[in-house]
């Protein structure tokens, strides 16, 4: 499948054979995103599931059935046992995963922990819009050690600009109540973190401080999903402008300058780690192989589902739990492209001095109808500016530390 124009396929089966002949081997999947419910009780205006190019949600069942759940557990366990995985992460996702109900989530948790190898550390997380958090629900999640992560877009006004109920009412008040509950005594240990989508119209430091008010152990800022064919808000083709870098560097300076780290900020943390010579553990930066698989409510095995922002069917692999193992995904071209590293990048990126840090940027951001994904990120100027800024700040401080020793 492709967008309006026909996209070239890369890698082809010959490309994959050549890569394997050269010694490349796939990396097993380590994180499974379970779409336990395929509908949502909010109507966020930038949602990649419902509001962008892909409309496959219309073909999915409302919720994952018990039979599909059992198949998913079997396939995940099979993969973990086969590859002797030291860690497996399972993210309950959607739509809104809490619509699946506490009993379903409890049964899923029980089945996973029973089926995975005893030597595998299994982490379970629910990524939620936060409006359904309640004491009875948190009691169940706590009983089964399911962490809770919530999406909040900064200040109340900024959040309610985009994350509303279908009737137009803002969701911030309900989320704030839920987060206050999550932060209270026995539930605090379940609080995994906050995700915020960048909105250029919101002051960056006000946004960061509003999120900090919920005392999250970690947070992250997500660049809005978009690409060369469907550009993100405010991201023109002019490479001299860096609106998203300007926004993020304001947050970075505030976060980095704190004498004691206020919260873990994932994107910046990974950029620094890459600049110091490490590997990224986040799919949107660096060249580390993507080890994510999505299991849709109907049992379809899919690539990272933010690809849905590119074109209808972009995340589809044609594989299904009933007929295919997780290993079968590892030979799929789109999975190979996201595991093979530098060779998958556009030529411009392969020659870029910050290629090992940027990694070409988040894969969905590279799409252009007619040329596929072998392009620089639509955010290329911003990434270059942001990485340069982080490098300058960190290397200056490390230089001061070194000089103090002489």
């Amino acid at each position, binding site marked *: 499948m492709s967008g309006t124009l026909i996209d070239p396929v890369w890698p082809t089966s010959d490309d994959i054979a050549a890569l394997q002949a050269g010694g490349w081997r796939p*990396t097993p999947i380590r994180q499974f995103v379970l779409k336990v419910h395929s509908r949502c009780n909010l109507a966020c205006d930038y949602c990649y599931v419902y509001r962008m190019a892909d409309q496959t949600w219309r073909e999915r069942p409302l919720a994952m059935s018990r039979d599909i759940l059992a198949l998913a557990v079997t396939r995940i366990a099979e993969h973990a046992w086969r590859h002797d995985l030291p860690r497996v*992460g399972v993210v309950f996702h959607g739509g809104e995963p809490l619509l699946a109900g506490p009993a379903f989530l409890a049964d899923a948790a029980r089945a996973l922990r029973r089926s995975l190898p005893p030597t595998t550390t299994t982490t379970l997380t629910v990524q939620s819009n936060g409006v359904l958090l309640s004491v009875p629900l948190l009691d169940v999640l706590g009983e089964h050690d399911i962490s809770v992560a919530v999406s909040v877009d900064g200040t109340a006004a900024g959040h309610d600009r985009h994350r509303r109920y279908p009737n137009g009412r803002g969701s911030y008040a309900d989320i704030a109540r839920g987060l206050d509950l999550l932060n209270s005594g026995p539930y605090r240990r379940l609080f*995994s973190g906050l995700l915020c989508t960048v909105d250029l119209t919101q002051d960056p430091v006000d946004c960061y401080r509003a999120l900090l008010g919920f005392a999250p152990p970690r947070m992250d800022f997500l660049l809005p999903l978009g690409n060369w064919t469907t550009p993100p808000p405010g991201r023109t083709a002019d490479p001299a402008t860096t609106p998203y870098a300007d926004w993020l560097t304001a947050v970075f300076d505030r976060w980095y300058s704190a004498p*004691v780290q206020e919260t873990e900020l994932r994107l910046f943390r990974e950029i620094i780690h890459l600049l110091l010579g490490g*590997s990224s553990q986040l799919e949107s930066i660096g060249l580390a192989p993507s080890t994510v698989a999505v299991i849709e409510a109907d049992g379809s095995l899919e690539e990272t589902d933010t690809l849905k922002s590119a074109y209808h069917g972009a995340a589809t692999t044609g594989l299904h739990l009933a007929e295919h193992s997780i290993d079968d995904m590892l030979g799929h071209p789109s999975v190979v492209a996201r595991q093979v590293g530098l060779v998958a990048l556009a030529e411009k990126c392969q020659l870029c001095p910050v290629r090992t840090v940027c990694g070409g940027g*988040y894969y969905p951001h590279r799409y252009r109808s007619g040329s596929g994904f072998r392009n620089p990120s639509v955010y290329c100027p911003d990434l270059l500016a942001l990485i340069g800024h982080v490098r300058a700040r960190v290397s200056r401080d490390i230089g001061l530390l070194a000089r103090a020793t002489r």
Partner: protein
Amino acid sequence: MDEDREIESNLIDLSDIDLELLPLLQDSVLARSIRRILQSAGSLDDAASTFQQSI
């Protein structure tokens, strides 16, 4: 080889740091970052990336 040197020149070199001074950085972002890179050296687990849409 020239390409490798170019990449390395864009990375930040920690070899001149006196690690005994690390406690002076308290629990800052920089201190945590330095500790993380030192702890992750050679770790195979480090080379895998995870889903952006969850945290």
